[in-house]
């Protein structure tokens, strides 16, 4: 056993640099960002005078950041739901002995291999009102303005909402910007194939006996899908929601290439705001505050997932 001890020292010393790097450059720098977010450093030269949570109060009171949060919610909901639906649908189509399955799979998944910047540039031109998709399928550029559409769909400003004290729901702040949906299309184009791959792997992992047993019991195919297949795919769905969700909460490259802020901040996101605040306007403390908000949003999604994952592994 003594010899193993020497190996143990060797093993730990080989992994130590990576542990140190992650400790300093992930956790350490997060802590430093957190510290910066409580300081006065809102000009080029660092000023670490503490201002408490003033920077957070500032950004939450700033209309642009409020719209960014709205956009994040709207984008996440549409993007995640659409990607899940398309991915599950395509996986189900492919899971029925399709000739050329490999070719279809490759076609659906290839956007994952390319940069969000490329996707953004190409879709920007595809959604140019005077050309692109409008020209291809003969849509009127005046009514189909895609990324340049300033419209924000929201609940009608009716008296009922006002009467019950929910009048604020009928404002742009709580609406769905049309331009944002164009970004959703591009993001779904890029990532729905990945969801397809996850679901397909999940479907292939379900033993046929389970569905066969239900079939023998006389269950219809739809019922089997609803009550046998879908529940068994729950872990896949959870994974897909987490992966897509965290991508969506920090979306940056795609929107920067497609439509950096958009008309009336309709395609602006916390990440866009963070970068411009910190690295254009040199308001580093405020930028750090935005970054911390992003981190908290993502951590509430990721941390339970990591713990769940670990438990699953231990129970195995």
């Amino acid at each position: 056993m003594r010899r193993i001890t020497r190996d143990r020292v060797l093993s730990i010393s080989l992994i130590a640099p990576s542990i140190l790097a992650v400790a300093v450059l992930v956790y350490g720098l997060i802590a430093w960002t957190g510290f910066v977010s409580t300081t006065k450093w809102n000009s080029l030269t660092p000023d670490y005078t503490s201002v408490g949570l003033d920077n957070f109060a500032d950004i939450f009171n700033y209309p642009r950041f409020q719209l960014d949060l709205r956009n994040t919610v709207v984008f996440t909901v549409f993007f995640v739901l659409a990607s899940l639906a398309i991915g599950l649908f395509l996986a189900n189509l492919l899971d029925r002995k399709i000739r050329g399955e490999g070719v279809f799979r490759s076609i659906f998944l290839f956007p994952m291999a390319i940069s969000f910047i490329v996707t953004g540039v190409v879709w920007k031109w595809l959604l140019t009102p005077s050309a692109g998709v409008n020209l291809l399928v003969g849509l009127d550029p005046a009514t189909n303005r895609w990324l340049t559409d300033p419209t924000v769909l929201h609940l009608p400003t009716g008296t009922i909402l006002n009467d019950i004290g929910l009048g604020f729901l009928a404002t742009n702040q709580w609406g769905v910007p049309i331009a944002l949906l164009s970004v959703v299309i591009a993001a779904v184009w890029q990532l729905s194939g990945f969801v397809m791959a996850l679901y397909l792997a999940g479907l292939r992992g379900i033993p046929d006996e389970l569905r066969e047993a239900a079939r023998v019991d006389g269950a219809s195919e739809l019922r089997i899908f609803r009550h046998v297949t879908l529940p068994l795919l729950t872990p896949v769905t959870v994974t897909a929601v987490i992966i897509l969700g965290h991508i969506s909460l920090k979306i940056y490259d795609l929107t920067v290439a497609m439509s950096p802020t958009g008309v009336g901040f309709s395609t602006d996101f916390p990440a866009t705001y963070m970068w411009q605040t910190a690295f254009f306007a040199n308001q580093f403390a405020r930028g750090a505050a935005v970054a911390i908000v992003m981190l908290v949003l993502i951590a509430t999604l990721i941390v339970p997932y990591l713990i769940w994952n670990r438990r699953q592994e231990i129970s195995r």
Partner: protein
Amino acid sequence: MSGAVIEERAPAASAVVRSPGPSPLRRLSRLTIYGALLVAAVFYLIPVYLLVLTGLKGQTEVTLDRMWTLPQTLGFASFTEAWDALSPNFLNSVKVAVPAALISSFVGSINGYVLAKWRFRGSETLFTLILFGMFIPYQAILIPLVQLEANFGLYGTIQGLVLIHIIYGIPITTLIFRNYYVAIPEELVEAARIDGAGFTSIYRYVLLPLSVPGFVVVLIWQFTSAWNDFLFAATLTSQPNWPVTVALNNLAGSFSVAWNVQMAGSLIAALPTLLIYVLLGKYFMRGLLAGSLKG
């Protein structure tokens, strides 16, 4: 499911399942299924079609109102112009992505080996803590990272960017290798140990020879992430050290650059990773599935 490859079902089992059932979905004829798949394929391929179409057109045909018309004369002017603008940055991307991928894979392999075969007290918790690093929004470390790189004289340099990709690649590369090595039977390691092999020789003679697929997955993954990265590059480098993604975004944001040149530039920027995907798609897929942890 990590590391899983999407395999076809065994024919014997599927023969039973595939018998046409009464489900609404299944009731759709095979033709409808293929029809739906083709429509989906068109949706995914349209941007590629447009990229190629535009790139091949002569300079006189690239007006927006003729976006979808087939080229009357073949011309590569868009590509030459885009290449002239992007080639130095394309080379920068190579200089970033290749070393980052190579070094990352070795770091990941060692870490994965330790975490899979030399577990110590708390190593599983440590692993989870490392994993968190691959999900964080990099915005949360970007401001101090700029300060840090500036202090070490790395700010703006290609070496600095390579280092950043290696470090923030530690979680994913460790994850892929760790799960890859966990799947290698403990008996193999135990047998080597009984034969007197220690840490180094077990790695060298037992695991490394079995690691080729793992290395391919990680190399592809890291090359693709480094090549496609925009946030780190845009923040930590400046022209002339920009990689191709930042240069392309700059090109596309400029009103003086014609759209056809932007399209050709996009194809140029996408080509290396697309090529890898076409040639080594299976390994790319494995990396993707591993990146989603267990599923």
